[in-house]
């Protein structure tokens, strides 16, 4: 601690911004945990809903999945606003231009899909022939998307949106795996500090 204080007081304090801000970290990890829960519940419930014994539980999990997915959408809105108004730490100097391009495009794609997957889910629920309301964690009614909820013939639209929600979610799973693989590569092979930029606590300004 003492050392940290001394260091930040020195001229090379500029490197302090080589970590993400507290808000960016909080949003990253909240969304990360939520999205893992979304993958788990999503993959389980689509099977369990067709099995008589687990159907009632799966229905409850669907309601929870809807609530959490909409929460991710709201958190992503906050995250995008934060990202547009705050500069993230620079990538390690040693990275080749191609690697930087890969990192930036993967991050951008993950941002896009973190918005697209919940939006498609919301759209699919809105176009559902069941017309079930979404009660956010049992607390208040979340509205359906306009147009979709008023469609005359919902079935084909709902079917298409369900497929899209599922497949885009699979792509997101793939990107998250790629993201984690990159963390492992940077930590184990490149031995750079990329992981620490997203971790709270110690390690600040480590050269």
């Amino acid at each position: 601690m003492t050392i940290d204080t001394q260091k930040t007081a020195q001229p090379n304090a500029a490197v302090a911004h080589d970590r993400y801000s507290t808000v960016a970290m909080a949003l990253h990890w909240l969304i990360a945990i939520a999205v893992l829960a979304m993958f788990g519940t999503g993959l389980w419930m689509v099977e369990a809903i067709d099995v008589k014994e687990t159907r009632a539980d799966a229905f409850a999990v669907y309601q929870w999945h809807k609530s959490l997915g909409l929460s991710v959408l709201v958190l992503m809105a906050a995250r995008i606003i934060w990202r547009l108004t705050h500069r993230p730490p620079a990538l390690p100097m040693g990275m080749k231009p191609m690697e930087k391009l890969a990192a930036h495009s993967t991050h951008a794609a993950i941002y896009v899909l973190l918005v697209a997957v919940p939006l498609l889910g919301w759209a699919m629920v809105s176009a559902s022939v069941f017309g079930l309301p979404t009660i956010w964690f049992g607390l208040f009614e979340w509205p359906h998307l306009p147009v979709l909820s008023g469609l005359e013939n919902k079935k084909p639209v709902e079917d298409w949106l369900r497929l899209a929600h599922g497949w885009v979610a699979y792509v997101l799973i793939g990107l998250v795996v790629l993201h984690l693989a990159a963390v492992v590569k940077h930590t184990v092979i490149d031995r750079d500090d990329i992981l620490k930029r997203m971790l709270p606590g110690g390690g600040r300004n480590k050269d």
Partner: protein
Amino acid sequence: MICKHPGRPWAGAVAVIAMLLAGAMNPAVAEATKWNVKTAESKIGFSATHAGRAFDGEFKSWSADIRFDPSDLEGSQAVVLVDLASAFTGDQTYDKTLPTVDWFNTSKFAEGRFETTGFQAKGDNQFTAAGTLTMRGIAVPVSLDFTFEASGGTAQLQGRTTLKRLDYGIGKGSDSAGDWVALDIPVTVSVALEKAE
């Protein structure tokens, strides 16, 4: 009628007498004891299953016009009006779904109406009411088994029947096979009555 036969003044009088006679012989004219419902102590409940899990609910708002006398079943009649939008299960997902177009469709058919057409005594304070239940504009014959126990100026009525929701087209679009919501819906009525003055 009188106006129809201006040349025969007696025709009108005959018509009136005929109507009175017909009325006296018509069993639909309810003359039996009139009862008021003690709303706070009365309940129209229903139960169902969803995804294999049981749940129950009740209609919070309804009214009944009841004339009933075990010794004058001919002169007994009941008309029950139920505000279908008042269905309450305590589960918001269900409560917000039930009024929608595919279920009760309350914006178009706000009321359910049960009207008895006749009563049958089965002994031991037990009766069966035959009647017609109308929901979503579809009238279906329904019989309600009930017990009626009167003491002094009050009475207690307990009845039950089972409705088939598809008879009324309820949930036909979402779940016509009963994969999700039970097709048979048991309904119970528990009504506290007091003699009307």
